[in-house]
Protein backbone atom coordinates (compact mmCIF):
# COMPACT_ATOMS: atom_id res chain seq x y z
CA UNK A 1 0.00 0.00 0.00
CA UNK A 2 1.48 3.32 -0.97
CA UNK A 3 1.17 6.14 1.49
CA UNK A 4 3.68 8.42 -0.14
CA UNK A 5 1.29 11.36 -0.38
CA UNK A 6 1.31 11.52 3.44
CA UNK A 7 4.15 13.35 5.12
CA UNK A 8 4.04 10.63 7.81
CA UNK A 9 4.36 7.20 6.25
CA UNK A 10 3.35 4.24 8.36
CA UNK A 11 6.63 2.46 7.81
CA UNK A 12 8.84 4.78 9.79
CA UNK A 13 7.88 5.78 13.31
CA UNK A 14 8.48 9.40 14.30
CA UNK A 15 6.71 9.94 17.65
CA UNK A 16 5.89 13.63 17.07
CA UNK A 17 4.23 13.17 13.70
CA UNK A 18 3.04 9.55 13.76
CA UNK A 19 -0.64 9.22 12.90
CA UNK A 20 -2.07 5.71 12.55
CA UNK A 21 -4.21 4.99 9.53
CA UNK A 22 -7.85 5.57 10.50
CA UNK A 23 -10.63 3.46 9.09
CA UNK A 24 -14.38 3.91 9.19
CA UNK A 25 -16.33 1.21 11.02
CA UNK A 26 -19.55 2.39 9.38
CA UNK A 27 -22.38 4.27 11.05
CA UNK A 28 -24.45 1.26 12.14
CA UNK A 29 -22.83 0.80 15.56
CA UNK A 30 -22.98 4.58 16.15
CA UNK A 31 -26.72 4.80 15.61
CA UNK A 32 -27.27 1.62 17.62
CA UNK A 33 -25.37 3.23 20.51
CA UNK A 34 -27.46 6.38 20.18
CA UNK A 35 -30.75 4.42 20.41
CA UNK A 36 -29.40 2.44 23.33
CA UNK A 37 -28.40 5.59 25.26
CA UNK A 38 -31.79 7.11 24.51
CA UNK A 39 -33.59 3.94 25.64
CA UNK A 40 -31.65 3.81 28.93
CA UNK A 41 -32.45 7.49 29.58
CA UNK A 42 -36.15 6.82 28.95
CA UNK A 43 -36.04 3.82 31.32
CA UNK A 44 -34.37 6.10 33.92
CA UNK A 45 -37.25 8.54 33.46
CA UNK A 46 -39.90 5.81 33.89
CA UNK A 47 -38.24 4.26 36.97
CA UNK A 48 -38.04 7.73 38.55
CA UNK A 49 -41.84 7.94 38.54
CA UNK A 50 -42.95 4.35 39.11
CA UNK A 51 -40.52 3.43 41.93
CA UNK A 52 -40.32 5.23 45.27
CA UNK A 53 -36.91 6.55 46.31
CA UNK A 54 -34.83 3.78 47.84
CA UNK A 55 -31.26 2.53 48.02
CA UNK A 56 -32.11 -0.05 45.36
CA UNK A 57 -33.46 2.62 43.00
CA UNK A 58 -30.28 4.69 43.48
CA UNK A 59 -28.12 1.65 42.70
CA UNK A 60 -30.15 1.03 39.52
CA UNK A 61 -29.59 4.67 38.43
CA UNK A 62 -25.85 4.44 39.11
CA UNK A 63 -25.51 1.11 37.26
CA UNK A 64 -27.41 2.59 34.29
CA UNK A 65 -25.06 5.60 34.41
CA UNK A 66 -22.02 3.30 34.29
CA UNK A 67 -23.54 1.36 31.36
CA UNK A 68 -24.10 4.65 29.48
CA UNK A 69 -20.51 5.70 30.28
CA UNK A 70 -19.23 2.36 28.96
CA UNK A 71 -20.95 2.88 25.59
CA UNK A 72 -19.93 6.55 25.28
CA UNK A 73 -16.28 5.78 26.02
CA UNK A 74 -16.17 2.49 24.09
CA UNK A 75 -18.07 3.35 20.92
CA UNK A 76 -18.30 7.16 20.65
CA UNK A 77 -14.80 7.81 21.98
CA UNK A 78 -13.56 4.80 20.02
CA UNK A 79 -11.67 3.26 22.96
CA UNK A 80 -12.95 -0.26 22.17
CA UNK A 81 -11.05 -0.12 18.88
CA UNK A 82 -7.78 1.25 20.31
CA UNK A 83 -4.70 -0.88 21.02
CA UNK A 84 -4.81 -3.04 24.14
CA UNK A 85 -2.24 -1.04 26.14
CA UNK A 86 -3.93 2.22 25.20
CA UNK A 87 -7.26 0.93 26.55
CA UNK A 88 -5.77 -0.16 29.85
CA UNK A 89 -3.70 2.97 30.30
CA UNK A 90 -6.90 5.03 30.29
CA UNK A 91 -9.31 2.65 32.02
CA UNK A 92 -7.15 1.27 34.84
CA UNK A 93 -6.21 4.59 36.57
CA UNK A 94 -9.83 5.69 36.26
CA UNK A 95 -11.17 2.51 37.90
CA UNK A 96 -8.56 2.44 40.67
CA UNK A 97 -8.69 6.13 41.56
CA UNK A 98 -12.48 6.51 41.29
CA UNK A 99 -13.23 3.46 43.42
CA UNK A 100 -10.81 4.83 46.02
CA UNK A 101 -12.67 8.18 46.00
CA UNK A 102 -16.05 6.46 46.33
CA UNK A 103 -14.72 4.30 49.17
CA UNK A 104 -13.56 7.46 50.99
CA UNK A 105 -16.97 9.01 50.37
CA UNK A 106 -18.71 6.07 52.03
CA UNK A 107 -16.51 6.18 55.14
CA UNK A 108 -16.17 9.93 55.60
CA UNK A 109 -19.79 10.73 54.72
CA UNK A 110 -21.03 8.41 57.45
CA UNK A 111 -18.57 9.87 59.93
CA UNK A 112 -19.52 13.52 59.22
CA UNK A 113 -23.17 12.68 59.73
CA UNK A 114 -22.33 10.88 62.97
CA UNK A 115 -20.36 13.82 64.37
CA UNK A 116 -22.94 16.40 63.31
CA UNK A 117 -26.22 14.88 64.47
CA UNK A 118 -25.72 12.06 66.96
Amino acid sequence: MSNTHHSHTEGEYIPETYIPHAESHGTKSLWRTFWLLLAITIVDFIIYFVADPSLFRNIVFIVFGIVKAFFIVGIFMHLNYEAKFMRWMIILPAIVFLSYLVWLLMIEGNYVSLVKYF
Partner: protein
Amino acid sequence: MSNTTTVSTESIWKGGRSPFNVSYGKLMMWIFLLSDAFTFSSLLVGYGAIRFSYAGSSTPWPDPATVFNHFPFAHGLHLPLLFVSLMTFILIFSSVTMVLAVEAGHRKSNAEVSKYMFLTILGGAAFLGCQAWEWSQFIHEGGRLDTNMFGFTQAGLDKANSLSFGSHYEWLPTDRAPGPVPFASLFFIVTGFHGFHVLSGVVINIIIWLNVIGGTYVKRGHYEMVEKVGLYWHFVDLVWVFVFTFYYLI
Protein backbone atom coordinates in the same frame (compact mmCIF):
# COMPACT_ATOMS: atom_id res chain seq x y z
CA MET B 1 2.10 -3.55 4.75
CA SER B 2 1.89 -5.25 8.12
CA ASN B 3 -1.10 -4.54 10.31
CA THR B 4 0.29 -3.16 13.57
CA THR B 5 -2.61 -4.34 15.73
CA THR B 6 -2.04 -8.03 14.97
CA VAL B 7 1.64 -8.13 15.97
CA SER B 8 2.24 -10.22 19.11
CA THR B 9 2.74 -8.32 22.38
CA GLU B 10 6.30 -9.57 22.97
CA SER B 11 7.70 -7.23 20.36
CA ILE B 12 5.44 -4.28 21.08
CA TRP B 13 7.78 -2.66 23.64
CA LYS B 14 10.97 -3.16 21.59
CA GLY B 15 10.81 0.30 20.09
CA GLY B 16 10.43 1.54 16.58
CA ARG B 17 6.72 2.19 16.94
CA SER B 18 4.11 3.31 19.44
CA PRO B 19 2.83 0.53 21.74
CA PHE B 20 -0.35 2.58 22.10
CA ASN B 21 -0.72 3.02 18.35
CA VAL B 22 -2.15 6.55 18.65
CA SER B 23 -0.82 9.91 17.61
CA TYR B 24 0.88 12.16 20.15
CA GLY B 25 -1.99 14.68 20.09
CA LYS B 26 -4.68 12.08 20.69
CA LEU B 27 -2.69 10.50 23.52
CA MET B 28 -2.37 13.91 25.19
CA MET B 29 -6.10 14.56 24.73
CA TRP B 30 -6.89 11.25 26.45
CA ILE B 31 -4.56 12.05 29.34
CA PHE B 32 -6.09 15.49 29.71
CA LEU B 33 -9.58 13.94 29.73
CA LEU B 34 -8.48 11.41 32.34
CA SER B 35 -7.31 14.24 34.61
CA ASP B 36 -10.51 16.16 33.89
CA ALA B 37 -12.50 13.05 34.85
CA PHE B 38 -10.72 13.10 38.21
CA THR B 39 -11.63 16.77 38.67
CA PHE B 40 -15.29 16.12 37.97
CA SER B 41 -15.39 13.03 40.15
CA SER B 42 -13.84 15.02 43.00
CA LEU B 43 -16.61 17.57 42.60
CA LEU B 44 -19.29 14.87 42.55
CA VAL B 45 -17.75 12.99 45.47
CA GLY B 46 -17.56 16.27 47.42
CA TYR B 47 -21.21 16.84 46.57
CA GLY B 48 -22.03 13.32 47.76
CA ALA B 49 -20.14 13.73 51.04
CA ILE B 50 -21.90 17.02 51.83
CA ARG B 51 -25.28 15.58 50.87
CA PHE B 52 -24.64 12.49 53.05
CA SER B 53 -23.83 14.76 55.97
CA TYR B 54 -27.38 16.18 55.92
CA ALA B 55 -28.96 12.77 56.55
CA GLY B 56 -31.06 13.13 59.69
CA SER B 57 -30.72 16.91 59.72
CA SER B 58 -33.58 19.22 60.73
CA THR B 59 -33.02 21.05 57.42
CA PRO B 60 -33.03 18.09 55.01
CA TRP B 61 -31.48 18.11 51.55
CA PRO B 62 -34.19 19.36 49.12
CA ASP B 63 -35.88 16.79 46.87
CA PRO B 64 -34.74 17.67 43.30
CA ALA B 65 -38.28 16.94 42.07
CA THR B 66 -39.59 19.98 43.98
CA VAL B 67 -36.83 22.27 42.66
CA PHE B 68 -36.21 21.32 39.02
CA ASN B 69 -39.82 20.87 37.96
CA HIS B 70 -40.19 23.59 35.32
CA PHE B 71 -40.68 23.32 31.62
CA PRO B 72 -40.73 26.24 29.12
CA PHE B 73 -44.27 27.43 28.24
CA ALA B 74 -45.74 25.23 30.98
CA HIS B 75 -45.67 27.66 33.86
CA GLY B 76 -47.23 26.45 37.10
CA LEU B 77 -47.19 22.77 36.14
CA HIS B 78 -45.27 20.23 38.21
CA LEU B 79 -43.05 18.53 35.60
CA PRO B 80 -39.99 17.16 37.37
CA LEU B 81 -37.12 15.65 35.35
CA LEU B 82 -38.77 16.42 31.99
CA PHE B 83 -36.59 19.42 31.10
CA VAL B 84 -33.28 17.80 32.10
CA SER B 85 -34.27 14.70 30.14
CA LEU B 86 -34.71 16.93 27.11
CA MET B 87 -31.26 18.45 27.79
CA THR B 88 -29.82 14.92 28.03
CA PHE B 89 -31.42 14.04 24.70
CA ILE B 90 -29.94 17.17 23.06
CA LEU B 91 -26.47 16.33 24.34
CA ILE B 92 -26.65 12.65 23.31
CA PHE B 93 -27.86 13.71 19.87
CA SER B 94 -25.03 16.22 19.47
CA SER B 95 -22.66 13.43 20.49
CA VAL B 96 -23.95 11.21 17.70
CA THR B 97 -23.58 14.00 15.11
CA MET B 98 -20.02 14.55 16.38
CA VAL B 99 -19.11 10.89 15.97
CA LEU B 100 -20.71 10.92 12.50
CA ALA B 101 -18.39 13.83 11.64
CA VAL B 102 -15.42 11.75 12.80
CA GLU B 103 -16.64 8.80 10.72
CA ALA B 104 -17.06 11.04 7.66
CA GLY B 105 -13.50 12.25 8.29
CA HIS B 106 -12.26 8.66 8.05
CA ARG B 107 -13.87 8.52 4.60
CA LYS B 108 -12.30 11.94 3.82
CA SER B 109 -15.70 13.43 2.93
CA ASN B 110 -15.17 17.12 3.68
CA ALA B 111 -18.78 18.16 2.97
CA GLU B 112 -20.18 15.60 5.41
CA VAL B 113 -17.68 16.48 8.14
CA SER B 114 -18.71 20.10 7.75
CA LYS B 115 -22.44 19.27 7.91
CA TYR B 116 -22.18 17.08 11.02
CA MET B 117 -19.86 19.50 12.83
CA PHE B 118 -22.38 22.28 12.20
CA LEU B 119 -25.17 20.12 13.68
CA THR B 120 -22.97 19.39 16.70
CA ILE B 121 -22.39 23.10 17.27
CA LEU B 122 -26.16 23.71 17.05
CA GLY B 123 -26.75 20.95 19.63
CA GLY B 124 -24.17 22.42 21.97
CA ALA B 125 -25.68 25.88 21.65
CA ALA B 126 -29.17 24.46 22.31
CA PHE B 127 -27.87 22.72 25.44
CA LEU B 128 -26.28 25.96 26.69
CA GLY B 129 -29.56 27.80 26.05
CA CYS B 130 -31.43 25.20 28.10
CA GLN B 131 -28.92 25.50 30.91
CA ALA B 132 -29.21 29.29 30.92
CA TRP B 133 -32.99 28.91 31.24
CA GLU B 134 -32.60 26.36 34.04
CA TRP B 135 -30.24 28.68 35.93
CA SER B 136 -32.57 31.66 35.51
CA GLN B 137 -35.45 29.63 37.00
CA PHE B 138 -33.24 28.53 39.88
CA ILE B 139 -32.07 32.08 40.59
CA HIS B 140 -35.60 33.45 40.20
CA GLU B 141 -36.84 31.09 42.94
CA GLY B 142 -34.16 32.17 45.39
CA GLY B 143 -31.11 30.01 44.65
CA ARG B 144 -27.82 31.85 45.23
CA LEU B 145 -24.25 30.81 45.90
CA ASP B 146 -24.88 31.65 49.57
CA THR B 147 -28.67 31.21 49.83
CA ASN B 148 -30.99 28.27 49.37
CA MET B 149 -34.73 28.96 49.57
CA PHE B 150 -35.76 25.44 48.57
CA GLY B 151 -36.45 24.19 52.08
CA PHE B 152 -40.06 23.67 53.16
CA THR B 153 -42.24 24.67 56.07
CA GLN B 154 -44.75 22.03 57.23
CA ALA B 155 -47.43 23.60 54.99
CA GLY B 156 -45.08 23.53 52.01
CA LEU B 157 -44.06 19.94 52.69
CA ASP B 158 -47.71 18.83 52.75
CA LYS B 159 -48.27 20.62 49.46
CA ALA B 160 -45.12 19.07 47.90
CA ASN B 161 -46.18 15.58 48.96
CA SER B 162 -49.58 16.00 47.30
CA LEU B 163 -48.10 16.92 43.90
CA SER B 164 -48.26 14.48 41.00
CA PHE B 165 -46.77 14.70 37.52
CA GLY B 166 -48.41 17.50 35.54
CA SER B 167 -50.50 18.90 38.41
CA HIS B 168 -50.88 22.66 38.96
CA TYR B 169 -49.06 24.21 41.89
CA GLU B 170 -47.88 27.52 43.24
CA TRP B 171 -45.37 27.98 46.05
CA LEU B 172 -46.44 30.67 48.53
CA PRO B 173 -43.91 32.55 50.69
CA THR B 174 -45.31 30.61 53.67
CA ASP B 175 -44.37 27.30 51.98
CA ARG B 176 -40.69 28.00 51.53
CA ALA B 177 -37.95 28.08 54.15
CA PRO B 178 -34.15 28.28 54.03
CA GLY B 179 -32.55 24.91 53.29
CA PRO B 180 -28.96 23.66 53.22
CA VAL B 181 -26.81 26.33 51.50
CA PRO B 182 -24.44 23.78 49.83
CA PHE B 183 -27.39 22.50 47.77
CA ALA B 184 -27.54 25.82 45.91
CA SER B 185 -23.82 26.57 45.80
CA LEU B 186 -22.93 23.08 44.56
CA PHE B 187 -25.62 23.33 41.90
CA PHE B 188 -23.94 26.44 40.51
CA ILE B 189 -20.43 25.00 40.87
CA VAL B 190 -21.06 21.54 39.38
CA THR B 191 -23.45 22.47 36.55
CA GLY B 192 -21.45 25.67 35.99
CA PHE B 193 -18.18 23.77 35.66
CA HIS B 194 -19.87 21.36 33.25
CA GLY B 195 -21.53 24.21 31.36
CA PHE B 196 -18.17 25.93 31.02
CA HIS B 197 -16.82 22.74 29.45
CA VAL B 198 -19.76 22.73 27.03
CA LEU B 199 -19.10 26.38 26.18
CA SER B 200 -15.41 25.79 25.50
CA GLY B 201 -16.38 22.66 23.52
CA VAL B 202 -18.67 24.75 21.31
CA VAL B 203 -15.94 27.37 20.79
CA ILE B 204 -13.35 24.69 19.90
CA ASN B 205 -15.87 22.97 17.60
CA ILE B 206 -16.50 26.28 15.81
CA ILE B 207 -12.76 26.79 15.26
CA ILE B 208 -12.33 23.28 13.84
CA TRP B 209 -15.49 23.66 11.75
CA LEU B 210 -14.06 26.83 10.19
CA ASN B 211 -10.89 24.86 9.41
CA VAL B 212 -13.00 22.14 7.77
CA ILE B 213 -14.79 24.72 5.63
CA GLY B 214 -11.45 26.32 4.74
CA GLY B 215 -10.14 22.97 3.49
CA THR B 216 -7.31 22.74 6.05
CA TYR B 217 -7.77 19.00 6.53
CA VAL B 218 -8.11 18.30 2.81
CA LYS B 219 -4.62 19.78 2.44
CA ARG B 220 -3.36 17.92 5.49
CA GLY B 221 -4.70 14.60 4.22
CA HIS B 222 -6.36 13.50 7.48
CA TYR B 223 -9.05 14.61 9.96
CA GLU B 224 -7.16 13.85 13.17
CA MET B 225 -8.14 17.26 14.64
CA VAL B 226 -11.83 16.43 14.25
CA GLU B 227 -11.21 13.21 16.19
CA LYS B 228 -9.48 15.10 18.99
CA VAL B 229 -12.24 17.67 19.46
CA GLY B 230 -14.68 14.77 19.13
CA LEU B 231 -13.07 13.09 22.15
CA TYR B 232 -13.48 16.29 24.15
CA TRP B 233 -17.10 16.67 23.08
CA HIS B 234 -18.00 13.07 24.05
CA PHE B 235 -16.33 13.61 27.40
CA VAL B 236 -18.69 16.54 28.04
CA ASP B 237 -21.58 14.18 27.32
CA LEU B 238 -20.04 11.56 29.62
CA VAL B 239 -19.83 14.02 32.51
CA TRP B 240 -23.44 15.06 31.94
CA VAL B 241 -24.54 11.41 32.36
CA PHE B 242 -23.23 11.54 35.93
CA VAL B 243 -24.40 15.06 36.71
CA PHE B 244 -27.86 13.94 35.53
CA THR B 245 -27.67 10.82 37.70
CA PHE B 246 -26.44 12.42 40.91
CA TYR B 247 -28.11 15.81 40.69
CA TYR B 248 -31.52 15.02 39.26
CA LEU B 249 -32.23 11.30 39.56
CA ILE B 250 -30.96 10.54 43.06
